[in-house]
């Protein structure tokens, strides 16, 4: 028994150590002076702005998830930590890859190991279902990407994205087939990056799982999906131009659906986690404004994903704190929360405001840049009206939540009684993560953005520009 407890403590300490180490590495990556983009000797991997940005984000979110994993039972937490590290490595591998083989390997690694982490560390009801959902979604995305990559490789005779862009058009008759492969790859990426209507399994996965793991998935998978898009779009730019293929028009349906459908669904949602997830999916879809006729602008997507990630970190922390006090996240149990648990209610409200747009935060600033980018381009009135409509729906969803917290009388009955406050360490952990995310949001918005923005300088040469 003593040995087991000792091992348990050692495992917890090691997980914490790994988490803190990952966060420290992320901060170091952010603080490092910008260097010129480099290619490895084989030309298969790029260390450019996108790769650095993705690596720093993965380190940060994996470190935070590790701190949350301390509560997992026994040595499972170490195994789960290993799975998350492996999965995060897969995301980074995909972000740095210029070869389709390693790009796909990164996707496969990330989508296979993350359900394993859920199985190992999530003790909540429905964890098995969530793991299966994650596995199925990931496998489907990997499978579709594998087929489309195979087609592109076969047509071009190369696995390097830059070569594919020039060689895939060599057979004139193959254009429809190649374009179908590109569209299929976009669908695969859409499943990972939560573009509607391929987001349908994700609100449950992101909103109902344990906060550290669900938050990790909600942040890592969109980075993965966008990595695929950015590497492919960068390489295929010459081919898209030759085919006169308008990428922005092709993804516009994702933008219209993504901006409006999740917002409308959020109005009827009964669980806070899913509500945040649906609002997050709506915000994610706005990143599609960074897609232009001949490709994607990574310099807009990266800060957009950073803003989204920070908002999710704050939301996850607020959600975890709230679940610890109420037992679950059903909205009906939260009536009058502003009077019962004012600080918890304030955190949950602030998280909802982050998804609507909280003045003075980085996530709103980058979204405004995206909107203006969309306004400056040719996409037209419908897309911008959809973005405004999505904002309207999210505002209503947040209003519903805030009305519940602050205007409704506390619900009667056992279910509404909050649990006794957890130990100071537990409370402090959630509070610390929440406040840290908010502080970073405000600091980046108020002037640190240019400093952090150095990371996102993308050398267009690497993307076929």
């Amino acid at each position, binding site marked *: 028994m003593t040995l087991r407890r000792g091992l348990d403590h050692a495992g917890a300490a090691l997980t914490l150590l790994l988490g803190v180490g990952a966060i420290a590495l992320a901060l170091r990556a952010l603080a490092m002076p910008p260097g010129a983009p480099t290619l490895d000797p084989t030309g298969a991997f790029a260390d450019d702005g996108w790769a650095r940005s993705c690596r720093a984000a993965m380190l940060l979110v994996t470190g935070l998830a590790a701190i949350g994993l301390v509560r997992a039972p026994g040595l499972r937490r170490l195994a789960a930590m290993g799975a998350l590290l492996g999965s995060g490595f897969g995301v980074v591998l995909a972000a740095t890859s210029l070869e389709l083989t390693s790009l796909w390997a990164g996707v496969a690694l990330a989508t296979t190991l993350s359900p394993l982490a859920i199985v190992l560390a999530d003790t909540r009801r429905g964890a098995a279902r969530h793991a299966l959902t994650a596995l199925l979604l990931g496998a489907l995305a990997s499978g579709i990407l594998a087929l489309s990559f195979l087609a592109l490789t076969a047509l071009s005779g190369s696995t390097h994205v830059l070569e594919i862009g020039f060689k895939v058009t060599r057979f004139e008759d193959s254009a429809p087939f190649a374009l179908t492969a590109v569209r299929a790859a976009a669908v695969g990426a859409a499943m990972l990056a939560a573009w509607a209507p391929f987001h349908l399994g994700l609100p449950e996965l992101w909103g109902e799982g344990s906060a550290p793991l669900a938050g990790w998935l909600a942040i890592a998978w969109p980075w993965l999906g966008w990595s695929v898009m950015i590497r492919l779009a960068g390489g295929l730019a010459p081919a898209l131009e030759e085919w006169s293929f308008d990428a922005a028009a092709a993804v516009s349906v994702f933008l219209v659906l993504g901006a409006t459908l999740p917002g409308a669904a959020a109005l009827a949602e009964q669980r806070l986690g899913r509500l945040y997830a649906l609002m997050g999916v709506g915000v994610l879809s706005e990143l599609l404004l960074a897609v232009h006729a001949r490709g994607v602008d990574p310099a807009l997507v990266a800060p957009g994903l950073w803003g989204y990630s920070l908002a999710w970190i704050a939301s996850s922390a607020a959600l975890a704190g709230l679940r610890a006090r109420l037992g679950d996240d059903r909205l009906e149990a939260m009536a009058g929360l502003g009077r019962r648990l004012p600080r918890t209610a304030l955190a949950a409200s602030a998280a909802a405001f982050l998804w609507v747009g909280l003045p003075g935060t980085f996530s709103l600033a980058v979204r405004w840049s995206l909107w203006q980018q969309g*306004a400056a381009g040719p996409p037209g009135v419908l897309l911008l009206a959809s973005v405004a409509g999505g904002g*309207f729906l999210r505002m209503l969803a947040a209003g519903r939540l805030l009305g519940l917290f602050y205007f409704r009388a506390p619900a009667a009955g056992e279910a509404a009684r909050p649990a006794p406050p957890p130990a100071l360490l537990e409370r402090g952990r959630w509070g610390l993560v929440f406040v840290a995310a908010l502080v970073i949001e405000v600091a980046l918005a108020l002037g640190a953005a240019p400093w952090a923005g150095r990371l996102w300088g993308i050398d267009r040469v690497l993307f076929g520009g």
Partner: protein
Amino acid sequence: MLSTVMATGEFDPAGPLAMVVFLPLVGALLLGFAPKPVARVLGRVAVLWTLPGALFLLAAAWFGASGHSVVGVRWLERLPAGAGLVLSIWNIVPALLVGLTAPLALLVAEPREKTPARAGWLLVLASSTQAALLGAGPGMVILGWVGGTWALFFLLGEADAEAQGQKANGPFVAHALACACVLAAGLSPGLLPLLVLAAAIRLGVPPFHGPLARAFEVLPTGAVLLLGVGFTTTGLLAAHDGTLALARAVGTSAVVAGTLAAFGALWAGLVALPQDDLRRRVAGFLSAQGAMWLALLALVDPALARPAVGGWALVTLVALVAIVVAYARLWAFARTGDLRAYGGLGQVALLRSTLLLLAFAALLAAPFLGARGSGVKALAASLVASPLAGGALALGGALGCLALGLAIYRTIRGQAAMPLPAPDLSGREWAFLALLAATLIFLSSLGPEVGGLGSLWPVFAAAGTP
């Protein structure tokens, strides 16, 4: 932060203008996060957060008037994160009105105990309205609209505690839609006509007269005051830009919108008449006026409509402030808006009755007083351009005035079921009155270029003009 990029060197660093917007916001944050005993004390002195801004705006108008030129009141500030604020002849009059109304809103007598939360949200409403008026780019303006909507939501929810905030939902949904319209218009010039919809919501033009009436019925008196002035001024700005964009997009669409608004004015006037709640009558009157102004802006030549509506609205809003201030203590005593509770004021409070009568007379004379009578000319022009729409809007405006006039008549001459222990004007109310009179005299003395009462209120910027 969210505004368009400004030219380097054009703007000064943040100064007093930022204080107008952000000082009340700082007060609101302190009220929200301070411990309860401290918040209670801060709530009582919340008015102090609004005074520096009001004094600065008065000073700016004074020096602007002495300059008698566009340059005299031009004031540009860049905020730390990149946004900008601008004070010019185009917005000084509404900004000054809101700036002077904000302290009043925090000081007037209320039917219920004043709470720190309410004071905080009133401060948010004041700073949001100023942000919407002073913003140099669409980002700041949108933030102002959104902030005002959230403030309205919480003020309504707080006031409607008995029904657990149910009455907050309708107005919130309507005003959130207005925010979405402003956001869309801020993103794309092609969507600028949506500003007409946003304006209709803020001005309470039918079919949005219901949310305005509900808000007036439920809100505390101070919030009614600030909402009436703030939302009307921002709504008029949106109405002007929206009708211009509509006219540019499709020639006849502005006429269609104007005709609809004219019949909206008629409908709002008709609906206001049978209301048995005093606050709903005031809201109905404002709805009819708002619809009428929107119709005039859409139907009449902008060169005539702009000064006409500007001057008319200025007189109306100042008179509205006087009416609400005069009624505030009565509402505080009666704790209801039911008209049957009011009557016989003329016998017990002569000065208060006189104030009500004078304010109402100012409302009636507003088309003649503002901008050298151009309100009347605009009405005549609308009748000539479209007799049906012109007749509808004139009738609607008259019915709105009649509804308010009958309510005031009942208050002064009617018989209440239970006599109100209505006191005459107190020292504080005398101070309000003195301030109001001084403001009127001051506004009248401003040169034509800076929006004097006798000339015009050039509140509406032509597209592209700061």
